[in-house]
């Protein structure tokens, strides 16, 4: 199998699945989440006396802390499992493309779709909050820093939830457990246990960039570079693991 075959196959799958994810039923969830974020941040913005601090904290807790893993879980944890269950995976499984590469063809559109959704949600939240106080250079900077964080987070969480979708027969249950119990609860506990969450390293990375809010004073942080390397390493590991599992999987 030559490189051209692989790249053509991956790009075909990426285009197809990106369209399916962005224009499918899940787009309704993105819209609802964006409306919710707009309402919460809009109200908070109207009550805020220190918009840069308060706005940053809301972007951190509401979007990066809560909705980031939840949206990745919604998009990713059933992506491959749904296609196995409804058997629409047949055209991929019977294509002359090694399944390990097909897996990449699922990962890329997932990462793109989650990133675009999170950027849209972040943009709506930012406008709802900072729009009331005037969008200045500092608020724009905060927005761009969080956009960078949610894009990075999208690709890390996508690798995690896609691997879950191959590993488990009921990936949604495990995805819910991970997103809410592990990231949401364990990731908030005091002490070193919270280091075992993706969110910890995203915040650590953000603490090196963002100058306002609690995230800038993240005192449990690993170094920003250390966090970046760890997130990259985790993503690559999960991708290799997921691709291996998908290659070995029987599609009965």
């Amino acid at each position, binding site marked *: *199998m030559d490189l*051209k*075959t692989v790249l*053509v*196959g991956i*790009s*075909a*799958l990426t285009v*197809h699945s990106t369209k*399916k994810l962005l*224009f*499918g039923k899940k787009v309704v969830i993105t819209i609802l989440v964006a409306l919710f974020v707009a309402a919460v941040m809009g109200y908070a913005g109207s009550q805020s006396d220190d918009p840069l601090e308060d706005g940053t904290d809301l972007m951190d807790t509401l979007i990066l802390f809560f909705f980031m893993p939840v949206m990745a879980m919604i998009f990713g944890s059933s992506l491959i499992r749904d296609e196995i269950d*409804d*058997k*629409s995976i*047949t*055209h*991929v*499984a*019977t*294509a*002359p*493309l*090694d*399944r390990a590469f097909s897996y990449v063809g699922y990962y890329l559109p997932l990462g793109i779709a989650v990133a675009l959704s999170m950027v849209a949600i972040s943009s709506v939240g930012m406008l709802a909050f900072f729009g009331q106080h005037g969008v200045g250079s500092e608020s724009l900077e905060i927005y761009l820093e969080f956009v960078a964080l949610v894009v990075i987070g999208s690709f890390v969480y996508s690798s995690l939830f896609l691997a879950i979708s191959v590993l488990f027969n009921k990936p949604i249950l495990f995805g819910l457990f991970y997103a809410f119990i592990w990231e949401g609860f364990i990731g908030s506990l005091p002490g070193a246990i919270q280091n075992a969450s993706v969110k910890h390293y995203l915040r650590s990375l953000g603490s090196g960039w963002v100058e306002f809010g609690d995230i800038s004073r993240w005192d449990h942080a690993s170094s920003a570079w250390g966090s970046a390397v760890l997130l990259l390493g985790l993503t690559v590991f999960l991708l290799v693991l997921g691709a291996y599992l998908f*290659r070995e999987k*029987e*599609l*009965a």
Partner: protein
Amino acid sequence: MISQENGPTPIIQAQALSKWYGQVIGLNNFALRVMPGITGIVGPNGSGKSTLFKLVLGLIKPNAGSITVLGKSPWKNSDLHSSIGFCPDYESLPVDSTGREYLTLIGKLHMMHGTALSKRIQEIVKLVEMGKAVDRKTGGYSKGMKQRMKIAGALLHDPELLILDEPLSGTDPLVRKDIIDLIKRLNKEHGHDIVVSSHVLFEIERMTHNVALVYRGRAVASGDISEIRNLIDRHPHNIIIEGERTTALAKILLDQDYVVSVSFNDSKDSVTVQVSKPDDFFNGLPALIDKAQCSVSKMYSLDDNLEAVFRYLVGR
């Protein structure tokens, strides 16, 4: 053609092939050699046809034995898929895509692109007579249209071997005829080797004389369909006759050498006749009815389904 041990290279060869899912056996010590041409795989639902095709396509791996397709092992051999086209028996078309989008995706996954792909799509939709519907969403297709579009997807990359799993299932008689004609044309005019499955022997008979009968995970018979027909004809048939004065008919039937037994059912106007030579029975019956001065309102065979035939063939 299904060959014996010697002869030209088979396109599919399975030896002592077994596949089980937990406690459920899909295939059991399955042996088959399929030669070029059209080959029918016939068996009742749940007999192992789809399991065989999944093994042929490398979607699942055997628990025991071996299988080769076009001389290669299919498990984890994605390169082999460039030589195989597969039309599954289930709904696999993406409902939110048009036929053209579906075929474009399939084409790109098979390394086709640009004007060559567009031209090929035009050729294929014309061949399967889907030219007018190719730009409609597949979710709105009828069953027959979906089958044609799945066949188009299987044909797009011009594979050497076509695997068609129950392509006639759920289609009306007119569509069936069209698909049968298409399958024959694909072999005769376009040179594709085709393996096609069905649970209806009669349908396969209209496409090919080369069949393998699969039952409970085993290939119970294979070869020319006339040999299998003979086997089936030697199968004692149970026939129920309902009408008036059937007692008189039963007495006369007992004197015939092709009648094995006659028994009365709950309704006294209904008898079950077991016959060893069904053709002789059906040929002689009008004269016997006349002789017994009875009238027959209803007559049907309990053995018209494949399940009964297969039970006979495996000696159960």
